[in-house]
Protein backbone atom coordinates (compact mmCIF):
# COMPACT_ATOMS: atom_id res chain seq x y z
CA UNK A 1 0.00 0.00 0.00
CA UNK A 2 1.37 3.38 -0.89
CA UNK A 3 1.48 6.23 1.58
CA UNK A 4 -0.51 9.31 0.56
CA UNK A 5 0.37 11.59 3.43
CA UNK A 6 3.26 11.38 5.81
CA UNK A 7 3.55 13.61 8.84
CA UNK A 8 6.94 13.41 10.53
CA UNK A 9 8.01 14.91 13.83
CA UNK A 10 5.60 17.84 13.69
CA UNK A 11 5.74 20.32 16.59
CA UNK A 12 3.61 23.41 17.05
CA UNK A 13 3.44 25.78 20.01
CA UNK A 14 1.16 28.75 20.58
CA UNK A 15 2.98 31.06 22.95
CA UNK A 16 3.70 28.74 25.87
CA UNK A 17 1.13 26.14 24.86
CA UNK A 18 2.45 22.97 23.24
CA UNK A 19 -0.38 22.18 20.82
CA UNK A 20 1.45 19.40 18.96
CA UNK A 21 4.43 17.40 20.21
CA UNK A 22 6.42 15.23 17.82
CA UNK A 23 3.44 13.97 15.86
CA UNK A 24 4.07 11.16 13.37
CA UNK A 25 1.36 9.85 11.11
CA UNK A 26 1.15 7.83 7.90
CA UNK A 27 -2.02 7.75 5.85
CA UNK A 28 -2.42 4.86 3.44
CA UNK A 29 -4.07 5.18 0.08
CA UNK A 30 -7.77 4.37 -0.01
CA UNK A 31 -8.08 4.16 3.76
CA UNK A 32 -10.23 6.13 6.16
CA UNK A 33 -8.06 7.26 9.02
CA UNK A 34 -9.82 8.62 12.08
CA UNK A 35 -8.18 10.98 14.55
CA UNK A 36 -9.91 11.12 17.89
CA UNK A 37 -9.11 12.85 21.12
CA UNK A 38 -10.60 15.15 23.75
CA UNK A 39 -11.35 18.83 23.13
CA UNK A 40 -8.24 20.92 22.72
CA UNK A 41 -6.07 17.90 21.97
CA UNK A 42 -4.69 19.55 18.83
CA UNK A 43 -6.66 17.70 16.16
CA UNK A 44 -7.69 20.77 14.18
CA UNK A 45 -4.21 22.22 14.62
CA UNK A 46 -2.76 19.12 12.99
CA UNK A 47 -5.00 19.54 9.95
CA UNK A 48 -4.14 23.25 9.84
CA UNK A 49 -0.50 22.29 9.55
CA UNK A 50 -1.32 20.05 6.59
CA UNK A 51 -3.29 22.53 4.46
CA UNK A 52 -1.10 25.58 4.84
CA UNK A 53 -3.16 27.46 7.40
CA UNK A 54 -0.38 27.05 9.96
CA UNK A 55 3.31 26.37 9.51
CA UNK A 56 4.65 23.86 12.05
CA UNK A 57 7.65 24.90 14.17
CA UNK A 58 9.48 21.78 13.03
CA UNK A 59 8.82 18.54 11.21
CA UNK A 60 7.67 17.72 7.72
CA UNK A 61 4.42 17.12 5.89
CA UNK A 62 4.82 15.10 2.69
CA UNK A 63 1.85 14.63 0.40
CA UNK A 64 2.18 12.34 -2.64
CA UNK A 65 5.94 12.66 -2.32
CA UNK A 66 5.84 16.49 -2.30
CA UNK A 67 6.84 18.65 0.65
CA UNK A 68 3.82 20.76 1.66
CA UNK A 69 5.44 23.01 4.27
CA UNK A 70 5.36 26.67 3.24
CA UNK A 71 3.08 26.03 0.27
CA UNK A 72 0.10 28.34 -0.24
CA UNK A 73 -3.35 26.95 0.66
CA UNK A 74 -4.47 27.12 -2.98
CA UNK A 75 -1.41 25.19 -4.12
CA UNK A 76 -2.09 22.48 -1.57
CA UNK A 77 -5.70 22.34 -2.76
CA UNK A 78 -4.58 21.76 -6.34
CA UNK A 79 -2.08 19.15 -5.19
CA UNK A 80 -5.17 17.17 -4.15
CA UNK A 81 -5.57 17.72 -0.41
CA UNK A 82 -8.93 19.31 0.45
CA UNK A 83 -10.20 20.31 3.86
CA UNK A 84 -13.74 20.50 5.21
CA UNK A 85 -13.69 22.85 8.18
CA UNK A 86 -14.94 22.39 11.71
CA UNK A 87 -16.95 25.62 11.66
CA UNK A 88 -18.64 25.71 8.26
CA UNK A 89 -16.69 27.84 5.80
CA UNK A 90 -19.16 28.57 3.04
CA UNK A 91 -20.25 31.56 0.95
CA UNK A 92 -23.27 32.65 2.98
CA UNK A 93 -24.50 35.30 0.50
CA UNK A 94 -24.52 32.89 -2.44
CA UNK A 95 -26.94 30.13 -3.36
CA UNK A 96 -26.22 26.49 -2.52
CA UNK A 97 -25.66 25.81 -6.21
CA UNK A 98 -23.14 28.64 -6.53
CA UNK A 99 -21.37 27.42 -3.41
CA UNK A 100 -20.69 24.13 -5.16
CA UNK A 101 -20.08 25.65 -8.59
CA UNK A 102 -17.14 27.65 -7.23
CA UNK A 103 -14.99 24.67 -6.15
CA UNK A 104 -15.90 22.97 -9.43
CA UNK A 105 -14.60 26.03 -11.27
CA UNK A 106 -11.43 25.94 -9.16
CA UNK A 107 -10.83 22.39 -10.26
CA UNK A 108 -11.31 23.30 -13.91
CA UNK A 109 -9.81 26.82 -14.07
CA UNK A 110 -6.81 26.42 -11.77
CA UNK A 111 -5.55 29.07 -9.36
CA UNK A 112 -6.35 31.95 -11.73
CA UNK A 113 -8.24 32.26 -14.98
CA UNK A 114 -9.46 35.47 -16.56
CA UNK A 115 -12.65 34.56 -18.38
CA UNK A 116 -15.01 37.53 -18.06
CA UNK A 117 -16.64 36.92 -21.43
CA UNK A 118 -17.84 33.39 -20.77
CA UNK A 119 -21.44 33.04 -19.70
CA UNK A 120 -21.95 31.27 -16.40
CA UNK A 121 -25.36 30.09 -17.60
CA UNK A 122 -23.68 28.29 -20.51
CA UNK A 123 -21.49 26.19 -18.20
CA UNK A 124 -23.87 23.24 -18.37
CA UNK A 125 -21.22 20.68 -17.51
CA UNK A 126 -20.23 22.51 -14.32
CA UNK A 127 -23.89 23.07 -13.50
CA UNK A 128 -24.78 19.39 -13.84
CA UNK A 129 -21.74 18.35 -11.86
CA UNK A 130 -22.77 20.76 -9.08
CA UNK A 131 -26.33 19.51 -9.03
CA UNK A 132 -25.06 15.93 -8.74
CA UNK A 133 -22.81 16.91 -5.85
CA UNK A 134 -25.76 18.57 -4.11
CA UNK A 135 -27.89 15.50 -4.75
CA UNK A 136 -25.17 13.34 -3.15
CA UNK A 137 -25.63 15.18 0.13
CA UNK A 138 -29.39 15.52 -0.30
CA UNK A 139 -29.51 19.27 -0.83
CA UNK A 140 -30.40 19.46 -4.52
CA UNK A 141 -34.00 20.43 -3.81
CA UNK A 142 -32.86 23.66 -2.17
CA UNK A 143 -30.21 24.62 -4.69
CA UNK A 144 -31.55 28.13 -5.08
CA UNK A 145 -31.63 28.88 -1.36
CA UNK A 146 -29.12 31.19 0.23
CA UNK A 147 -26.36 29.23 1.91
CA UNK A 148 -26.47 31.56 4.90
CA UNK A 149 -30.08 30.68 5.62
CA UNK A 150 -29.81 26.90 6.04
CA UNK A 151 -29.30 24.97 9.29
CA UNK A 152 -25.86 24.22 10.72
CA UNK A 153 -26.14 20.56 9.85
CA UNK A 154 -27.07 21.44 6.26
CA UNK A 155 -24.13 23.82 6.06
CA UNK A 156 -21.80 20.97 6.99
CA UNK A 157 -23.35 18.80 4.29
CA UNK A 158 -23.00 21.65 1.83
CA UNK A 159 -19.35 22.00 2.71
CA UNK A 160 -18.92 18.28 2.28
CA UNK A 161 -20.36 18.61 -1.23
CA UNK A 162 -17.95 21.49 -1.87
CA UNK A 163 -15.06 19.23 -0.92
CA UNK A 164 -16.30 16.17 -2.79
CA UNK A 165 -16.91 17.97 -6.07
CA UNK A 166 -13.16 18.57 -6.32
CA UNK A 167 -12.62 14.82 -6.19
CA UNK A 168 -9.51 15.16 -4.01
CA UNK A 169 -6.88 12.51 -3.45
CA UNK A 170 -7.13 13.12 0.27
CA UNK A 171 -10.14 14.61 1.98
CA UNK A 172 -9.68 16.06 5.47
CA UNK A 173 -12.90 16.11 7.43
CA UNK A 174 -13.03 18.05 10.69
CA UNK A 175 -16.05 16.77 12.63
CA UNK A 176 -18.31 16.37 9.59
CA UNK A 177 -21.37 15.34 11.61
CA UNK A 178 -21.19 17.83 14.48
CA UNK A 179 -24.49 19.66 14.74
CA UNK A 180 -26.39 17.09 12.71
CA UNK A 181 -29.48 15.21 13.77
CA UNK A 182 -29.12 11.40 14.11
CA UNK A 183 -30.89 10.76 10.84
CA UNK A 184 -28.59 13.13 8.93
CA UNK A 185 -25.56 11.66 10.67
CA UNK A 186 -26.48 8.21 9.40
CA UNK A 187 -26.98 9.59 5.91
CA UNK A 188 -23.56 11.21 6.07
CA UNK A 189 -22.01 7.93 7.18
CA UNK A 190 -23.60 6.21 4.18
CA UNK A 191 -22.31 8.90 1.88
CA UNK A 192 -18.80 8.66 3.29
CA UNK A 193 -18.89 4.88 2.89
CA UNK A 194 -19.93 5.36 -0.72
CA UNK A 195 -17.02 7.66 -1.51
CA UNK A 196 -14.70 5.22 0.19
CA UNK A 197 -15.76 2.67 -2.40
CA UNK A 198 -14.64 5.20 -5.03
CA UNK A 199 -11.18 4.93 -3.50
CA UNK A 200 -10.93 8.35 -1.92
CA UNK A 201 -8.55 8.55 1.04
CA UNK A 202 -9.87 10.39 4.07
CA UNK A 203 -8.76 11.71 7.41
CA UNK A 204 -11.72 12.16 9.67
CA UNK A 205 -11.78 13.91 13.02
CA UNK A 206 -14.82 12.99 15.01
CA UNK A 207 -16.16 12.91 18.56
CA UNK A 208 -19.09 10.69 17.68
CA UNK A 209 -17.81 7.12 18.29
CA UNK A 210 -20.64 5.65 16.27
CA UNK A 211 -19.36 7.53 13.22
CA UNK A 212 -15.73 6.65 13.97
CA UNK A 213 -16.30 2.93 14.38
CA UNK A 214 -18.58 2.73 11.33
CA UNK A 215 -16.06 4.34 9.03
CA UNK A 216 -12.49 4.05 10.21
CA UNK A 217 -9.94 1.51 9.01
CA UNK A 218 -7.37 2.96 11.29
CA UNK A 219 -7.60 5.18 14.35
CA UNK A 220 -5.04 7.46 15.98
CA UNK A 221 -5.66 8.97 19.37
CA UNK A 222 -4.39 12.43 20.11
CA UNK A 223 -4.25 13.74 23.67
CA UNK A 224 -2.57 16.98 24.71
CA UNK A 225 -0.74 17.21 21.43
CA UNK A 226 0.73 13.68 21.50
CA UNK A 227 -0.35 10.59 19.61
CA UNK A 228 -0.89 8.17 22.47
CA UNK A 229 -2.13 5.23 20.42
CA UNK A 230 -2.60 4.19 16.83
CA UNK A 231 -4.12 1.03 15.41
CA UNK A 232 -7.18 -0.75 14.06
CA UNK A 233 -10.56 0.03 15.63
CA UNK A 234 -10.42 -3.18 17.67
CA UNK A 235 -6.96 -2.44 18.98
CA UNK A 236 -8.03 1.07 19.99
CA UNK A 237 -11.23 -0.13 21.62
CA UNK A 238 -9.24 -2.43 23.87
CA UNK A 239 -6.28 -0.14 24.55
CA UNK A 240 -6.26 0.70 28.27
CA UNK A 241 -4.40 3.99 27.75
CA UNK A 242 -7.09 5.17 25.34
CA UNK A 243 -9.88 4.04 27.62
CA UNK A 244 -8.39 6.13 30.36
CA UNK A 245 -7.68 9.21 28.28
CA UNK A 246 -10.73 9.33 26.14
CA UNK A 247 -13.11 6.47 25.53
CA UNK A 248 -13.84 5.93 29.19
CA UNK A 249 -15.10 9.46 29.55
CA UNK A 250 -17.37 9.31 26.53
CA UNK A 251 -18.85 5.95 27.45
CA UNK A 252 -19.78 7.26 30.87
CA UNK A 253 -21.59 10.25 29.42
Amino acid at each position, binding site marked *: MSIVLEIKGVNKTFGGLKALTDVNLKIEEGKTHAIIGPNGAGKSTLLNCCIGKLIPDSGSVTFNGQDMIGK*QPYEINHAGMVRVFQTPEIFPELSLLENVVIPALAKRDGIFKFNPFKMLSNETEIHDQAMRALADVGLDKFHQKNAGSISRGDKRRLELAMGLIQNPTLLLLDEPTAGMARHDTNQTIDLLKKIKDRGMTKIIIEHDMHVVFSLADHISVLAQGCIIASGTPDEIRNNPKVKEAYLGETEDE
Partner: protein
Amino acid sequence: MIKSILEKFSLEKNSSVMLVFAAVVLSAPIWLTPFGANYPDLLQKFAIFGIFAIGFNILFGLTGYLSFGHAVFLGVGSYTAVWVFKLFTMNVLPAVMLSVAIAAVFALLIGYISLRRSGIYFSILTLALAQMSYNLAYSVLTPITSGETGLQLSSEDPRYIDSLLGAGVQEGLPATNFFGMSMSGYSGFYFCAIFLILAFYISLKIFRSPYGLKLIAIKSNQKRMLYTGFNTRPYLLSAFVISGMFAGLAGGLMAATDPLAGAERMQWTASGEVVLMTILGGSGTLIGPLLGVGVIKYFENIFSALNETSLREIFNFLPDVVADFLVSITHVFVGEGWHLTLGILFMLVVIFLPGGIMQGVGIFTRYYKKKMTELKSERSVEKGKSQ
Protein backbone atom coordinates in the same frame (compact mmCIF):
# COMPACT_ATOMS: atom_id res chain seq x y z
CA MET B 1 -46.33 37.94 -33.64
CA ILE B 2 -45.87 40.40 -30.78
CA LYS B 3 -46.59 37.61 -28.36
CA SER B 4 -43.79 35.45 -29.73
CA ILE B 5 -41.38 38.37 -29.49
CA LEU B 6 -42.43 38.97 -25.89
CA GLU B 7 -41.98 35.31 -25.09
CA LYS B 8 -38.45 35.35 -26.41
CA PHE B 9 -37.75 38.45 -24.37
CA SER B 10 -36.17 37.67 -21.04
CA LEU B 11 -33.87 39.69 -18.83
CA GLU B 12 -31.81 36.52 -18.44
CA LYS B 13 -30.63 37.14 -21.98
CA ASN B 14 -27.86 39.65 -22.49
CA SER B 15 -29.29 40.77 -25.82
CA SER B 16 -32.63 41.71 -24.26
CA VAL B 17 -30.96 43.62 -21.45
CA MET B 18 -28.75 45.49 -23.89
CA LEU B 19 -31.67 46.35 -26.13
CA VAL B 20 -33.61 47.91 -23.28
CA PHE B 21 -30.53 49.65 -21.91
CA ALA B 22 -29.52 51.14 -25.26
CA ALA B 23 -33.07 52.33 -25.92
CA VAL B 24 -33.27 54.02 -22.52
CA VAL B 25 -29.87 55.70 -22.85
CA LEU B 26 -30.29 56.89 -26.42
CA SER B 27 -33.76 58.28 -25.75
CA ALA B 28 -32.63 60.06 -22.58
CA PRO B 29 -32.86 63.53 -24.21
CA ILE B 30 -36.58 62.85 -24.69
CA TRP B 31 -37.65 61.28 -21.42
CA LEU B 32 -35.53 63.60 -19.31
CA THR B 33 -37.31 66.65 -20.77
CA PRO B 34 -40.12 66.76 -18.18
CA PHE B 35 -37.45 66.77 -15.45
CA GLY B 36 -35.73 69.74 -17.04
CA ALA B 37 -32.59 67.64 -17.34
CA ASN B 38 -32.37 67.24 -21.09
CA TYR B 39 -29.67 69.78 -21.86
CA PRO B 40 -26.47 68.37 -23.39
CA ASP B 41 -24.07 69.41 -20.62
CA LEU B 42 -25.98 67.49 -17.99
CA LEU B 43 -26.64 64.55 -20.29
CA GLN B 44 -22.91 64.27 -20.96
CA LYS B 45 -22.26 64.33 -17.22
CA PHE B 46 -24.80 61.56 -16.65
CA ALA B 47 -23.11 59.37 -19.25
CA ILE B 48 -19.54 60.08 -18.12
CA PHE B 49 -20.16 59.61 -14.41
CA GLY B 50 -22.25 56.58 -15.33
CA ILE B 51 -19.14 54.99 -16.82
CA PHE B 52 -17.10 56.00 -13.78
CA ALA B 53 -19.61 54.42 -11.39
CA ILE B 54 -20.10 51.26 -13.45
CA GLY B 55 -16.36 50.71 -13.32
CA PHE B 56 -16.12 51.47 -9.63
CA ASN B 57 -18.91 48.99 -9.01
CA ILE B 58 -16.93 46.21 -10.68
CA LEU B 59 -14.35 46.57 -7.93
CA PHE B 60 -16.46 47.58 -4.95
CA GLY B 61 -19.75 45.93 -5.84
CA LEU B 62 -18.26 42.57 -6.72
CA THR B 63 -15.16 42.15 -4.56
CA GLY B 64 -16.18 44.43 -1.68
CA TYR B 65 -12.84 46.26 -1.80
CA LEU B 66 -13.66 49.92 -1.16
CA SER B 67 -11.22 52.18 -3.00
CA PHE B 68 -11.10 55.77 -1.83
CA GLY B 69 -8.77 56.87 -4.58
CA HIS B 70 -10.48 56.12 -7.85
CA ALA B 71 -10.53 59.77 -8.89
CA VAL B 72 -6.80 59.45 -9.62
CA PHE B 73 -7.62 57.41 -12.69
CA LEU B 74 -10.23 59.98 -13.71
CA GLY B 75 -7.57 62.68 -13.47
CA VAL B 76 -4.96 60.61 -15.26
CA GLY B 77 -7.46 59.98 -18.07
CA SER B 78 -8.15 63.70 -18.45
CA TYR B 79 -4.48 64.73 -18.43
CA THR B 80 -3.67 62.05 -20.99
CA ALA B 81 -6.48 63.14 -23.29
CA VAL B 82 -5.51 66.81 -23.15
CA TRP B 83 -1.90 65.92 -23.92
CA VAL B 84 -3.00 63.93 -26.93
CA PHE B 85 -5.01 66.96 -28.09
CA LYS B 86 -1.99 69.18 -27.62
CA LEU B 87 0.59 66.91 -29.19
CA PHE B 88 -1.20 64.96 -31.86
CA THR B 89 -4.76 65.56 -32.88
CA MET B 90 -8.07 67.04 -31.84
CA ASN B 91 -9.81 63.84 -32.90
CA VAL B 92 -11.05 62.37 -29.62
CA LEU B 93 -10.71 58.70 -30.47
CA PRO B 94 -6.92 58.35 -29.93
CA ALA B 95 -7.18 60.55 -26.84
CA VAL B 96 -9.86 58.41 -25.27
CA MET B 97 -8.06 55.19 -26.09
CA LEU B 98 -4.79 56.41 -24.65
CA SER B 99 -6.60 57.66 -21.52
CA VAL B 100 -7.78 54.14 -20.87
CA ALA B 101 -4.32 52.68 -21.46
CA ILE B 102 -2.45 55.12 -19.19
CA ALA B 103 -5.10 54.76 -16.49
CA ALA B 104 -4.58 50.99 -16.68
CA VAL B 105 -0.87 51.45 -15.97
CA PHE B 106 -1.59 53.65 -12.95
CA ALA B 107 -4.25 51.23 -11.72
CA LEU B 108 -1.80 48.36 -11.99
CA LEU B 109 0.73 50.24 -9.86
CA ILE B 110 -1.68 51.56 -7.24
CA GLY B 111 -3.62 48.31 -7.16
CA TYR B 112 -0.49 46.23 -6.74
CA ILE B 113 0.53 48.25 -3.69
CA SER B 114 -2.89 48.68 -2.05
CA LEU B 115 -4.03 45.10 -2.51
CA ARG B 116 -1.32 43.90 -0.14
CA ARG B 117 -3.90 44.79 2.50
CA SER B 118 -7.65 44.32 2.76
CA GLY B 119 -10.57 46.04 4.47
CA ILE B 120 -10.04 49.45 5.98
CA TYR B 121 -6.27 49.29 5.38
CA PHE B 122 -6.82 48.85 1.68
CA SER B 123 -9.15 51.87 1.65
CA ILE B 124 -6.60 53.98 3.50
CA LEU B 125 -3.79 52.93 1.18
CA THR B 126 -5.80 53.92 -1.88
CA LEU B 127 -6.73 57.21 -0.22
CA ALA B 128 -3.11 57.94 0.67
CA LEU B 129 -1.82 57.10 -2.80
CA ALA B 130 -4.56 59.22 -4.37
CA GLN B 131 -3.79 62.24 -2.20
CA MET B 132 -0.13 61.78 -3.01
CA SER B 133 -0.91 61.81 -6.73
CA TYR B 134 -3.10 64.87 -6.29
CA ASN B 135 -0.37 66.77 -4.50
CA LEU B 136 2.21 65.72 -7.07
CA ALA B 137 -0.04 66.98 -9.84
CA TYR B 138 -0.28 70.29 -8.01
CA SER B 139 3.41 70.77 -7.31
CA VAL B 140 6.29 68.67 -8.59
CA LEU B 141 4.62 67.62 -11.80
CA THR B 142 3.67 71.15 -12.85
CA PRO B 143 5.53 70.82 -16.19
CA ILE B 144 3.14 68.02 -17.09
CA THR B 145 0.00 69.15 -15.32
CA SER B 146 0.33 72.97 -15.31
CA GLY B 147 -0.33 72.80 -11.57
CA GLU B 148 -2.93 75.21 -10.30
CA THR B 149 -3.98 76.66 -13.62
CA GLY B 150 -4.76 73.25 -15.03
CA LEU B 151 -3.76 71.79 -18.36
CA GLN B 152 -5.29 73.63 -21.30
CA LEU B 153 -5.01 73.84 -25.05
CA SER B 154 -2.96 76.63 -26.47
CA SER B 155 -2.42 78.05 -29.94
CA GLU B 156 1.28 77.07 -29.78
CA ASP B 157 0.47 73.35 -29.43
CA PRO B 158 2.18 71.36 -32.19
CA ARG B 159 -0.67 68.89 -32.94
CA TYR B 160 1.65 66.91 -35.23
CA ILE B 161 -0.94 64.66 -36.80
CA ASP B 162 -3.45 67.42 -37.47
CA SER B 163 -0.80 69.67 -39.03
CA LEU B 164 0.51 66.75 -41.07
CA LEU B 165 -2.97 66.15 -42.41
CA GLY B 166 -2.93 69.81 -43.38
CA ALA B 167 -5.51 71.25 -41.06
CA GLY B 168 -4.54 74.84 -41.79
CA VAL B 169 -3.84 77.42 -39.14
CA GLN B 170 -7.08 78.55 -37.62
CA GLU B 171 -8.23 81.57 -35.74
CA GLY B 172 -8.40 80.74 -32.01
CA LEU B 173 -8.29 77.30 -30.49
CA PRO B 174 -9.50 74.27 -32.44
CA ALA B 175 -12.39 72.23 -31.07
CA THR B 176 -12.40 68.55 -30.23
CA ASN B 177 -14.18 66.36 -32.77
CA PHE B 178 -14.85 62.78 -33.74
CA PHE B 179 -13.92 62.66 -37.44
CA GLY B 180 -15.52 66.05 -37.87
CA MET B 181 -18.45 65.50 -35.54
CA SER B 182 -18.53 68.15 -32.83
CA MET B 183 -18.06 67.07 -29.22
CA SER B 184 -20.27 69.76 -27.78
CA GLY B 185 -24.03 69.61 -27.62
CA TYR B 186 -26.06 66.51 -28.34
CA SER B 187 -23.48 64.88 -30.60
CA GLY B 188 -21.07 64.99 -27.64
CA PHE B 189 -23.70 63.28 -25.54
CA TYR B 190 -24.27 60.55 -28.11
CA PHE B 191 -20.54 59.94 -28.35
CA CYS B 192 -20.39 59.44 -24.57
CA ALA B 193 -23.62 57.41 -24.64
CA ILE B 194 -22.07 54.88 -27.01
CA PHE B 195 -19.23 54.38 -24.54
CA LEU B 196 -21.72 54.14 -21.67
CA ILE B 197 -23.55 51.37 -23.52
CA LEU B 198 -20.26 49.61 -24.21
CA ALA B 199 -19.20 49.97 -20.57
CA PHE B 200 -22.52 48.59 -19.40
CA TYR B 201 -22.17 45.65 -21.76
CA ILE B 202 -18.74 44.78 -20.38
CA SER B 203 -20.05 45.07 -16.84
CA LEU B 204 -23.02 42.84 -17.69
CA LYS B 205 -20.70 40.22 -19.17
CA ILE B 206 -18.46 40.29 -16.11
CA PHE B 207 -21.42 40.03 -13.72
CA ARG B 208 -22.70 36.96 -15.51
CA SER B 209 -19.36 35.21 -16.05
CA PRO B 210 -17.54 32.61 -13.95
CA TYR B 211 -14.93 35.31 -13.34
CA GLY B 212 -17.64 37.56 -11.89
CA LEU B 213 -18.93 34.81 -9.64
CA LYS B 214 -15.42 34.29 -8.28
CA LEU B 215 -15.16 38.01 -7.52
CA ILE B 216 -18.44 37.88 -5.61
CA ALA B 217 -17.21 34.82 -3.76
CA ILE B 218 -14.10 36.76 -2.69
CA LYS B 219 -16.38 39.38 -1.14
CA SER B 220 -18.38 36.66 0.57
CA ASN B 221 -15.48 34.64 2.05
CA GLN B 222 -11.98 35.31 0.81
CA LYS B 223 -10.38 32.77 3.14
CA ARG B 224 -12.62 30.08 1.74
CA MET B 225 -11.52 30.98 -1.78
CA LEU B 226 -7.88 30.36 -0.85
CA TYR B 227 -8.65 26.89 0.52
CA THR B 228 -10.87 26.20 -2.50
CA GLY B 229 -7.88 26.58 -4.78
CA PHE B 230 -7.95 30.19 -5.95
CA ASN B 231 -5.16 32.69 -5.75
CA THR B 232 -7.32 35.72 -4.97
CA ARG B 233 -4.62 38.35 -5.56
CA PRO B 234 -4.69 38.30 -9.39
CA TYR B 235 -8.49 38.27 -9.32
CA LEU B 236 -8.52 41.38 -7.17
CA LEU B 237 -5.79 43.09 -9.17
CA SER B 238 -7.51 42.45 -12.50
CA ALA B 239 -10.81 43.80 -11.13
CA PHE B 240 -8.94 46.84 -9.81
CA VAL B 241 -7.31 47.50 -13.17
CA ILE B 242 -10.58 47.09 -15.07
CA SER B 243 -12.32 49.55 -12.81
CA GLY B 244 -9.37 51.93 -13.12
CA MET B 245 -9.66 51.71 -16.90
CA PHE B 246 -13.34 52.63 -16.74
CA ALA B 247 -12.39 55.65 -14.63
CA GLY B 248 -9.70 56.53 -17.18
CA LEU B 249 -12.28 56.33 -19.94
CA ALA B 250 -14.57 58.66 -17.99
CA GLY B 251 -11.69 61.10 -17.49
CA GLY B 252 -10.82 60.95 -21.17
CA LEU B 253 -14.41 61.68 -22.13
CA MET B 254 -14.53 64.61 -19.71
CA ALA B 255 -11.58 66.11 -21.54
CA ALA B 256 -13.10 65.21 -24.90
CA THR B 257 -16.24 67.22 -24.19
CA ASP B 258 -14.37 70.03 -22.46
CA PRO B 259 -10.64 69.97 -23.21
CA LEU B 260 -9.02 70.87 -19.92
CA ALA B 261 -7.72 68.92 -16.95
CA GLY B 262 -7.03 70.04 -13.41
CA ALA B 263 -5.66 68.40 -10.31
CA GLU B 264 -8.93 68.93 -8.42
CA ARG B 265 -10.37 66.15 -10.55
CA MET B 266 -8.17 63.78 -8.49
CA GLN B 267 -9.08 65.15 -5.10
CA TRP B 268 -10.48 62.84 -2.44
CA THR B 269 -13.89 64.53 -2.66
CA ALA B 270 -14.12 63.29 -6.24
CA SER B 271 -13.19 59.78 -5.11
CA GLY B 272 -15.80 60.04 -2.37
CA GLU B 273 -18.46 61.11 -4.83
CA VAL B 274 -18.31 57.88 -6.80
CA VAL B 275 -18.49 55.91 -3.55
CA LEU B 276 -21.65 57.83 -2.61
CA MET B 277 -23.18 57.32 -6.03
CA THR B 278 -22.58 53.58 -5.95
CA ILE B 279 -23.86 53.08 -2.41
CA LEU B 280 -26.87 55.34 -2.93
CA GLY B 281 -27.95 53.43 -6.03
CA GLY B 282 -27.03 49.98 -4.75
CA SER B 283 -23.54 48.54 -4.99
CA GLY B 284 -23.18 45.12 -6.52
CA THR B 285 -26.20 45.62 -8.76
CA LEU B 286 -25.94 46.35 -12.47
CA ILE B 287 -28.22 49.39 -12.60
CA GLY B 288 -27.82 50.76 -9.06
CA PRO B 289 -24.68 52.83 -9.64
CA LEU B 290 -26.33 54.51 -12.62
CA LEU B 291 -29.35 55.44 -10.52
CA GLY B 292 -26.99 56.88 -7.94
CA VAL B 293 -25.27 58.95 -10.61
CA GLY B 294 -28.64 60.16 -11.87
CA VAL B 295 -29.83 61.27 -8.45
CA ILE B 296 -26.60 62.96 -7.38
CA LYS B 297 -25.94 64.76 -10.66
CA TYR B 298 -29.58 65.80 -10.83
CA PHE B 299 -29.41 67.33 -7.38
CA GLU B 300 -26.09 68.96 -8.10
CA ASN B 301 -27.29 70.59 -11.30
CA ILE B 302 -31.04 71.10 -10.92
CA PHE B 303 -31.58 71.62 -7.20
CA SER B 304 -28.57 73.88 -6.93
CA ALA B 305 -30.00 76.10 -9.68
CA LEU B 306 -33.29 76.70 -7.84
CA ASN B 307 -33.65 79.89 -5.80
CA GLU B 308 -36.35 81.79 -3.93
CA THR B 309 -37.84 83.27 -7.08
CA SER B 310 -38.10 79.95 -8.85
CA LEU B 311 -39.62 78.38 -5.73
CA ARG B 312 -42.18 81.21 -5.58
CA GLU B 313 -43.14 80.39 -9.15
CA ILE B 314 -43.62 76.74 -8.25
CA PHE B 315 -45.84 77.57 -5.28
CA ASN B 316 -47.72 80.56 -6.75
CA PHE B 317 -50.92 78.56 -7.22
CA LEU B 318 -51.24 78.51 -3.42
CA PRO B 319 -52.56 81.37 -1.25
CA ASP B 320 -49.80 83.90 -0.51
CA VAL B 321 -49.48 83.07 3.17
CA VAL B 322 -49.04 79.35 2.52
CA ALA B 323 -46.69 79.97 -0.37
CA ASP B 324 -44.54 82.30 1.75
CA PHE B 325 -44.38 79.70 4.46
CA LEU B 326 -43.43 76.87 2.08
CA VAL B 327 -40.84 79.00 0.32
CA SER B 328 -39.25 80.00 3.61
CA ILE B 329 -38.84 76.33 4.52
CA THR B 330 -37.89 74.85 1.18
CA HIS B 331 -35.39 77.49 0.13
CA VAL B 332 -33.01 76.09 2.74
CA PHE B 333 -32.86 72.86 0.79
CA VAL B 334 -32.21 74.26 -2.68
CA GLY B 335 -29.58 76.50 -4.24
CA GLU B 336 -26.54 76.43 -2.01
CA GLY B 337 -28.44 74.09 0.25
CA TRP B 338 -28.61 71.19 -2.20
CA HIS B 339 -25.86 69.43 -0.28
CA LEU B 340 -28.17 69.39 2.73
CA THR B 341 -30.95 67.73 0.73
CA LEU B 342 -28.57 65.19 -0.73
CA GLY B 343 -27.11 64.48 2.71
CA ILE B 344 -30.54 63.83 4.19
CA LEU B 345 -31.50 61.64 1.24
CA PHE B 346 -28.29 59.66 1.55
CA MET B 347 -28.83 59.17 5.27
CA LEU B 348 -32.39 57.99 4.77
CA VAL B 349 -31.39 55.54 2.07
CA VAL B 350 -28.48 54.09 4.00
CA ILE B 351 -30.54 53.71 7.18
CA PHE B 352 -33.70 52.29 5.67
CA LEU B 353 -32.36 50.69 2.49
CA PRO B 354 -28.77 49.59 3.11
CA GLY B 355 -28.86 47.97 -0.32
CA GLY B 356 -29.48 51.38 -1.89
CA ILE B 357 -32.26 52.46 -4.22
CA MET B 358 -32.15 49.06 -5.92
CA GLN B 359 -33.18 47.41 -2.66
CA GLY B 360 -36.24 49.66 -2.63
CA VAL B 361 -36.97 48.69 -6.22
CA GLY B 362 -36.63 45.02 -5.29
CA ILE B 363 -39.01 45.32 -2.33
CA PHE B 364 -41.50 47.16 -4.50
CA THR B 365 -41.46 44.64 -7.37
CA ARG B 366 -41.80 41.69 -4.98
CA TYR B 367 -44.77 43.40 -3.33
CA TYR B 368 -46.30 44.12 -6.73
CA LYS B 369 -45.86 40.53 -7.92
CA LYS B 370 -47.42 39.20 -4.73
CA LYS B 371 -50.41 41.49 -5.14
CA MET B 372 -50.80 40.37 -8.75
CA THR B 373 -50.80 36.67 -7.92
CA GLU B 374 -53.25 37.31 -5.07
CA LEU B 375 -55.54 39.12 -7.46
CA LYS B 376 -55.29 36.31 -9.99
CA SER B 377 -56.09 33.61 -7.46
CA GLU B 378 -59.03 35.66 -6.14
CA ARG B 379 -60.38 35.92 -9.66
CA SER B 380 -60.05 32.20 -10.32
CA VAL B 381 -61.84 31.51 -7.01
CA GLU B 382 -64.69 33.79 -8.12
CA LYS B 383 -64.81 32.06 -11.49
CA GLY B 384 -65.05 28.72 -9.75
CA LYS B 385 -67.95 29.99 -7.64
CA SER B 386 -69.93 31.35 -10.59
CA GLN B 387 -69.62 28.10 -12.53
